[in-house]
């Protein structure tokens, strides 16, 4: 009887050996994560800092410490990409470079990203399960953001009437303000329909959101994504001190924000054009069109299923 013997296939062995050698060589060519020095690290209570260090610092800081398997090709490319992207959104090692108001917005956004399980990224958690944020840790983060100054901000300043309004019409001597995204200010929203009205704790403001006819019709017809031509305008005020009956009235006008749906023109921001006009003189916000990317990044992270809008009436 012939003995069955395993005979190695030389061709197979050669290919396998070559692949292993190529793979090892490739490991030497992968991207390297470079940690710059800290320049104004975030300063938060120790229980909050512990959560950030455990779950966020790997990507959102200059203290990235990739494990050996993070450094393996091709994973190393994904890791390097995620770290670059994360640091561009916010870098906890360079926190002091961010204006204080923006820091608060980002902290609330972090809480929301964690609550909606958008962060930490699931692909990161799959290989770093210890970075998961527990419900009790989320509660610590929520408690913290509720201590931020914007949470209880009261607008006590004398209310400035707009010098540009006469008989309900906007009159601006310097011409119509136009956002760098190409959206011109117009007060025609005043005859649109109110879509929603909100009390915003983060930052301390109250808002009325209007929708134009196309937007309102789409909501009535349950049409998501919203069609081209849909527009939303949000008017933002500070909040006056609560009276004895508990009423809180609008304080000073802060800004007015536009979202305009044009799937071709605003393709890079998911079909929505953004504009914000600040203060009574309606100064267009944003030095470069990149500001709209900051807008859509948050809308994309948290309300992608709503066609990227927050302020629509939902059950």
């Amino acid at each position, binding site marked *: 009887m012939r003995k069955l013997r395993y005979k190695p296939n030389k061709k197979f062995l050669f290919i396998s050996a070559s692949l292993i050698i190529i793979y090892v060589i490739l490991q030497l060519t992968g991207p390297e994560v470079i940690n710059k020095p800290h320049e104004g690290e975030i300063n938060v209570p120790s229980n909050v800092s512990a959560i950030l260090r455990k779950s966020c610092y790997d990507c959102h800081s200059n203290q990235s410490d990739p494990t050996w398997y993070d450094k393996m090709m091709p994973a190393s490319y994904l890791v390097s990409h995620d770290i670059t992207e994360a640091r561009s959104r916010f870098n906890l090692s360079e926190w002091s470079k961010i204006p204080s108001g923006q820091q608060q917005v980002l902290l609330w956004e972090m809480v929301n990203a964690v609550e909606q399980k958008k962060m930490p990224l699931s692909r990161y958690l799959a290989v770093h399960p210890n970075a998961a944020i527990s419900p009790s840790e989320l509660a610590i983060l929520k408690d913290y953001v509720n201590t931020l100054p914007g949470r209880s901000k009261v607008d006590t300043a004398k209310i400035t*009437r*707009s010098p540009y309004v006469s008989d309900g019409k906007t009159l601006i001597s310097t011409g119509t303000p136009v956002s760098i995204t190409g959206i011109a200010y117009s007060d025609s929203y005043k005859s649109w329909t109110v879509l929603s009205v909100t009390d915003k704790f983060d930052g301390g403001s109250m808002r009325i959101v209007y929708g134009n006819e196309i937007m309102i019709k789409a909501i009535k017809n349950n049409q998501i994504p919203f069609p081209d031509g849909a527009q939303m305008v949000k008017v933002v005020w500070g909040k006056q001190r609560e009276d004895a009956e508990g009423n809180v009235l609008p304080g000073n006008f802060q800004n007015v924000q536009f979202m305009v749906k044009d799937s071709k023109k605003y393709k890079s921001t998911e079909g929505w054009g953004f504009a914000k006009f600040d203060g009574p003189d309606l100064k267009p916000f944003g030095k470069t069109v990149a500001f709209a990317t900051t807008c859509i990044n948050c809308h994309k992270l948290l309300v992608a299923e709503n066609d990227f809008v927050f302020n629509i009436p939902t059950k």
Partner: protein
Amino acid sequence: MIALFPALLSCSSKKTPELAPEYIFNDPNLKVISSVINRKEGTIAVIYGNTPAVNTANDATGEHVDGEEFKMVTWKLKPMPNWYGTDMNGRMLSVETVDISKKTGENIVFKYHYEPAVKQESHVKTRDSSKRVAFIVGLPAAVMP
């Protein structure tokens, strides 16, 4: 496996929102005057007015004129889905209307009407109508450029 595929897809697909157009108040003859948040009552409201009402609310020294119409629409305050940190209007609770008539040689008359959004349901136990009228017609307009 093929049969399982759609099931897997539906599990991972994003949750589409359940829109609530019935929360929207629309009266094309009226424009916004102001808004009121009341966390004690858990409500949020918008005060609307017709053109004479909006003009009076925009003028700190203005006196009421004949034909002014005000409507205060009140909704239940609820947390905004998808954003922890903001509360927004939920279902509508009531619409309060004040109509002003001021005929020459006669006293000014404020006609008040309270309409709950759901019949047999009032979101406040007692409502002093004269106080409500004073509050609604006395609100200065929010600054809107």
